């Protein structure tokens, strides 16, 4: 039979009374304002017994120009699941600047919940590594899977760091080529440099 995980709708209602308009409910998903995510998670873990962080994933909604972080929390006694969503403004040109000790400031910011759920430590580092979402208060906000000197965040929809030259969407590349557009694959860079020269000559 198809697995149906029972969603804790009553808990979503309680959250709305407790936190007021910070929480909207979209279907059975609680959409949380991104600054209150840590408070909500602490409340859920301590009072409501959602002790198991089942999943923390980031989704790049490029059409709505938003970045969404989804939390799936599971309570082991009540055997119920609750889904929290936090929508962040999307940083179009992943322009966040990483200082030497890898402290980055940028638009996609979110309080980290690794103090409440220590299991979220690596999940958040992976979300930062592949999407560029910065989790404030995270003990070790560095890249997890890619090389330290990797430029760009590959899982974003507009990042073509791995696409071979013949598949690249040139309109988008040209639109971005006026500012710093660094890619990691040698084949693509030469192609883009050539395109840029033609553009300068054409002008």
């Amino acid at each position: 039979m198809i697995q149906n995980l029972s969603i804790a709708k009553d808990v979503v209602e309680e959250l709305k009374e407790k936190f007021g308009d910070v929480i909207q409910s979209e279907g059975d998903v609680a959409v949380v304002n991104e600054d209150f995510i840590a408070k909500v998670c602490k409340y859920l873990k301590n009072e409501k017994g959602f002790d198991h962080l089942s999943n923390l994933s980031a989704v790049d909604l490029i059409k709505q120009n938003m970045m969404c972080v989804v939390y799936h929390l599971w309570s082991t006694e009540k055997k119920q699941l609750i889904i929290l969503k936090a929508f962040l403004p999307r940083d179009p040109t992943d322009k966040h600047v990483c200082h030497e000790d890898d402290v980055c400031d940028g638009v996609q910011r979110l309080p980290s919940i690794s103090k409440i759920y220590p299991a979220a430590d690596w999940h958040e580092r992976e979300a930062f590594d592949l999407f560029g979402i910065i989790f404030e208060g995270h003990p070790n906000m560095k890249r997890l899977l890619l090389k330290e000197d990797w430029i760009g965040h590959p899982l974003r929809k507009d990042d073509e760091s791995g696409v071979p030259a013949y598949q690249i969407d040139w309109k988008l590349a040209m639109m971005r080529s006026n500012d710093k557009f660094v890619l990691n694959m040698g084949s693509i860079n030469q192609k883009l440099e050539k395109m840029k020269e033609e553009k300068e000559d054409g002008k």
Partner: protein
Amino acid sequence: MIVVGQLEKLIKNLTGNLANWGRSWSFWPLTFGTACCAIEMMAMASPRNDAERHGILFFASTPRHADVVIVAGTINEKMKPRLRRLYEQMPDPKWVVAMGACEIGGGPFWNGYNVEKGIDGFLPVDIYVPGCPPRPENLLEALIQLQKLIKKDSMARYKSGNPHL
């Protein structure tokens, strides 16, 4: 003078063949496996198709004791410098077996941003074993072919320092 020339050629021939005979039968691969092909490499050493029948003993845990490195599993950009250094740490008569589609041309992950498309860019590969993952019998057959190659190997190959001679 001719006798000395003949004698010297005979001795060089004899030692060369003896060395090649020794190298081919005592064939210690480096225990290096990253992904799914490593499981099939272990299955090759398991009792069903026992690699030790041909002298292939998975005993060398350091590059110093290894003769051949069977690159089993996808190599991505973070692993590439490590693999190159491992190859350089191995003592000289050494061979490289590229096992699995990921080593030959990137395999199912060829258009990944982080995956190295084939290891013959930075390693001199002797034997390619296609398959994803290749069956243990394929790998054993490939190693036996490599052993045959070694038997006919020429000593000149190592003096010139160019493994592709």
